[in-house]
């Protein structure tokens, strides 16, 4: 008798109909979007703030250096005495006063620039001012040595190294960023999925134990059927939740940004601002084109197929262990000691993925960890966008599936014995003994 579909259906429906599950499903994207909207709104407020910076340049060297921008206006106070300038700035409630004290030689210049303001000024403003002054000063020094402006301009070169593999596959820096984004997203998604829904499976096993229904069920179905039904049913509920999150999140994103006129993609951090500036320099148009080309360059078919296989095997590997833990204990507080050995390789995988795959996707560390079954799903998913030979993927998958089958066997053993054990918290030694029952 194959009861698997029946069990899957029950597990799925119970999860999906559960009140807290429903609330989480619909509330989470709302909260997320609300949070993003608030941050976006606040940073927009910040960006829109008009600043006036007054310049008191006693040397006259920096005449044309400061050009007004959208948010910043520069006022030239040349000719005023310092005390008058300060008073004026205070009265106008300007952002601050940049004071360049008169110096005799260019060499002393650097030590005589000061910025006065009411509060301590923002880092980005100061570094903006500094870079402008530095640039001007360098030009002046070069000019003093007899180099002309046009020579300086001509000396500037922008190097963009073109990358090409031995097979003639071209790639660029942006390619790598895109690959990293895809791999990272895939690996991180798996990590999150395992943590969230693995826990859910564990809780559901514990619930069956504490409600004492387990023996009734077990007299009708094989424990392994119940376990697999539970894992698959819960995973389907998880996938449902994820899909709803993505759709709802997307819709809400559009709705919120049209209603409130907040551009949610413009959550600017100082770094992003610098990147934007860099992009503007290179030309945003070209950048976007590169991006599309880069995505097109990805080994999409390989990526999708590998994602499915590694995701499913990796997830099943971990979730069967979660089920075994749930069966071994009586309540959730007892799970702690068994959680560590599960969480450790997962976190290790994410760290290896983040730190070594970025640095060297085909280096020894990345390669080894993309074969070790407990870390391979995450690490391999991160490596694949960079192009991993099919034999490596195949071998890794084979190892993973082998381990997964072993883990299911192991978990089923623990599960079979554990679900009928009440009252005491087992030790590792006892778990080992159960394997032989």
């Amino acid at each position, binding site marked *: *008798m194959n*009861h698997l579909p*029946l069990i899957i259906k029950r597990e799925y429906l119970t999860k999906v109909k559960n009140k807290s599950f429903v609330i989480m499903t619909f509330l989470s994207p709302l909260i997320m979007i609300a949070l993003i909207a608030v941050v976006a709104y606040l940073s927009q407020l910040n960006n829109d703030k008009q600043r006036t910076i007054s310049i008191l340049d006693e040397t006259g060297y920096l005449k044309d250096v400061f050009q007004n921008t959208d948010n910043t206006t520069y006022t030239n106070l040349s000719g005023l005495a310092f005390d008058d300038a300060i008073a004026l700035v205070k009265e106008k409630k300007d952002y601050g006063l940049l004071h360049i004290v008169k110096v005799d030689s260019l060499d002393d210049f650097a030590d005589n620039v000061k910025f006065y303001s009411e509060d301590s000024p923002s880092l980005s403003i100061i570094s903006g001012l500094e870079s402008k002054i530095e640039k001007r000063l360098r030009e002046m020094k070069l000019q003093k040595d007899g180099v002309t402006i046009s020579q300086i301009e001509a000396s500037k070169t922008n190097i963009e190294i073109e990358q090409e593999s031995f097979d003639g596959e071209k790639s660029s820096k942006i390619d790598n960023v895109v690959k990293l984004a895809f791999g990272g997203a895939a690996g991180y998604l798996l990590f999150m999925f395992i943590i969230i829904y693995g826990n859910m499976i564990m809780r559901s096993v514990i619930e069956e134990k504490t*409600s004492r229904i387990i*023996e*009734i069920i077990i*007299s*009708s179905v094989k424990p392994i059927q119940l376990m697999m039904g539970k894992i698959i049913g819960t995973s389907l509920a998880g996938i449902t939740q994820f899909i709803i999150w993505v759709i709802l999140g997307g819709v809400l994103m559009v709705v919120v940004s049209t209603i409130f006129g907040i551009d949610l993609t413009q959550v600017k951090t100082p770094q992003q601002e610098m990147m934007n500036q860099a992009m503007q320099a290179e030309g945003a148009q070209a950048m976007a084109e590169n991006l599309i080309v880069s995505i097109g360059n990805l080994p999409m078919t390989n990526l999708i197929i590998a994602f499915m296989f590694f995701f499913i095997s990796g997830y099943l590997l971990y979730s069967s262990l979660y089920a075994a833990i749930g069966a071994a204990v009586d309540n959730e507080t007892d799970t702690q000691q068994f959680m560590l050995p599960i969480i450790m390789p997962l976190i290790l995988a994410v760290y290896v993925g983040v730190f070594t795959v970025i640095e060297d996707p085909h280096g020894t560390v990345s390669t080894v960890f993309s074969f070790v079954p407990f870390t391979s799903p995450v690490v391999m998913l991160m490596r694949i966008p960079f192009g991993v030979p099919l034999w490596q993927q195949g071998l890794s998958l084979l190892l993973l599936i082998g381990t997964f089958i072993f883990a299911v066997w192991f978990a089923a053993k623990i599960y079979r014995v554990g679900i009928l054990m009440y009252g005491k918290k087992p030790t590792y030694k006892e778990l080992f003994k159960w394997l032989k*029952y």
Partner: protein
Amino acid sequence: MNDLLVANSVSKSFGGFRALNEVSIAVPKGSIFGLLGPNGAGKTTLIRIINQITMPDQGRVLLDGQPLKTEHIRDIGYLPEERGLYKSMKVGEQCLYLAQLKGLSKTEAKKRLKHWFNKLEIGDWWNKKIQELSKGQAQKIQFIVTVLHQPKLLIFDEPFSGFDPINANLIKDEILQLREEGATVIFSTHRMESVEELCDHIALIHKSNKILDGKLNDIKRQNKTNTFEVGLASLNKDRVFAEIQDKFEVLPATFKNLNDDMKLNIKLGLDTSPNDLLSFLTSKAEVHHFVEVIPSASDIFIQTIKNN
């Protein structure tokens, strides 16, 4: 083939602990078979083996002459001692699910559930959640789920725990009726009065070994000590007592009746018949009470365990 279930020298160990040691039982068709034993004797292990929850290390179990296989699950209905239901699931849904796991179709299960719900007068519970029911009410649901698929073999482990006397009686009558309809029942309990009432066969398991089995009446016959409980009224109690003590082995007895009688247990030798005793007693005193002492299931239980 008159035995529905036969276990042939079944053994099972958990690690170093031997939970069952070559236990054999035979459960006749249509009987109510009491599986008795102190806590931790191995009853539950044996029941779990019959239910294919655990596999025996040695020995085999035959159901209707065939070795146990997966298909037999639908021939067995099991009400475990540790029992419960999904708390947040509705009664109706839950019953349907459990019935389908036993191989019933959804429509058939619904039909039978309606019948049982009416019979036990719980028709309006269909949409309630289990957590809204009392313990006894949940037990009723569990009972229905156990018998719904009309199994040949019913296994009840402490079926009356959690029931008030009225409902316990109701369930007892249902069990008896199921037996009338042809089901065979294995009944595990510590309540000896229900063993007395229901069982016609018993097996006693102690420290992983079966130490006694057979028809309850046969066992009682084997265990009786040829002792008679008598109540006598006489004006001269001391003299009568001395005369009886002279001829027979006498012990004091306690039972209740209306008169201020001499209450005695008199044990007869093999050469004396009850009639001899009775005629002797009538010649000495007025006999108000004369009953053969038949060992109760509880006495047999305690005695047999002590002797082992």
